[in-house]
């Protein structure tokens, strides 16, 4: 098994995160998810500029525009990652991922535009599907929900298709 220097075994970290998920349901009655937080955040931002429009947008109203368990969960992920990276000296201020740079160059603007469009498309899809890889993938498959199996399979199908377009296999790779 290949693991990077200093990285935790993904099976151990994954199993521990599974236990964390079970504890979360027992203690707080909450299954992990992340994408609804982005709906609440966008609703809160819009509310500052066009409060009436937001009040008439049924989807925003159905989610409730306040800081809830999941909102703090997402902020916590950022903090937890910061702590882990600082304590293991793996924090890197990086604008362009290595794999991207090797194929598409180091332009921050180019990576920025693609990342922005990617985020927009991904979130639209996640909300349409009813969840993201944590809500549908982890929590959905944990509960054996049919929606989770369909969504998770489609996440990977769409992702593999786009990855093949962003990183087309060279002639050498196909034949070598």
């Amino acid at each position, binding site marked *: 098994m290949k693991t990077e220097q200093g*990285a935790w075994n*993904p*099976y151990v970290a*994954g*199993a521990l995160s*599974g236990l964390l*998920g*079970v504890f979360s349901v027992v203690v707080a*009655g909450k299954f992990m998810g*992340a994408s609804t937080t*982005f*709906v609440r955040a*966008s*609703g809160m931002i819009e509310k500052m500029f066009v409060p009436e429009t937001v009040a008439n947008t*049924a*989807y*925003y109203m159905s989610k409730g525009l306040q800081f809830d*368990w999941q909102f*703090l*969960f997402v*902020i*916590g*992920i950022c903090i*937890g*990652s910061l702590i*882990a990276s600082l304590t293991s000296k793996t924090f890197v*201020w990086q604008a362009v991922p290595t*794999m*991207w740079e090797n194929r598409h160059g180091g332009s*921050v603007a180019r990576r920025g535009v693609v*990342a*922005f469009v*990617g*985020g*927009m*498309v*991904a979130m*639209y*899809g996640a*909300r*349409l*599907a*009813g969840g*993201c*890889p944590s809500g549908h993938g*982890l*929590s959905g498959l*944990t*509960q*054996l*929900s*049919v*929606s989770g199996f*369909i*969504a998770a399979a*489609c996440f990977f199908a*769409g992702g*593999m*298709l786009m*990855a093949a377009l962003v990183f087309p296999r060279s002639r050498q790779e196909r034949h070598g």
Partner: protein
Amino acid sequence: MALIYGLITGIVFGFLLQKARVIRYDKQLGALRLKDMTIVKFMLSNIIVGMVGIYILNDMGMVRLSVKATSIGANALGGIVFGLGWGLLGYCPGTAAGALGEGRWDALWGIGGMLVGASLFAHTYPVLKSTVYTWGNLGKITLPQMLGISHWPVIIGLVILYVLVLGWFEKKGL
């Protein structure tokens, strides 16, 4: 109180994601390019432990399930659209927050895009509700319910399947 539990759960989850290197663009695209299955190993280990744990506690009456509704149209179409965006961004909503935490600040562009995508969705939802969502609407259903059998044979079968998949990844050196 729920807010504090959410924050603590998030911090521990983010810590584990970073330690396993799951939040990196290179790991996520590595999986989508079928070159490095680190994120799938993490996910399947999480699911195996979570599935067994949650259903044991559910049988004991200690937890309640919270199953998302199934609409084949919305789950499948939304899933593929999500995947296409994920392949461009290289982070999903949770891992984008984690990637930012370890200094990969291209995640910020992605988070900005996600906020715009969420807004677009909220404003187009009425149209979708009367169309895509009605295609193959099965309600809040689990796999054992659909098959009409007890959940344990399904769980045991899936654990065996997931372990076989993981064993295959190891054999292939992914």
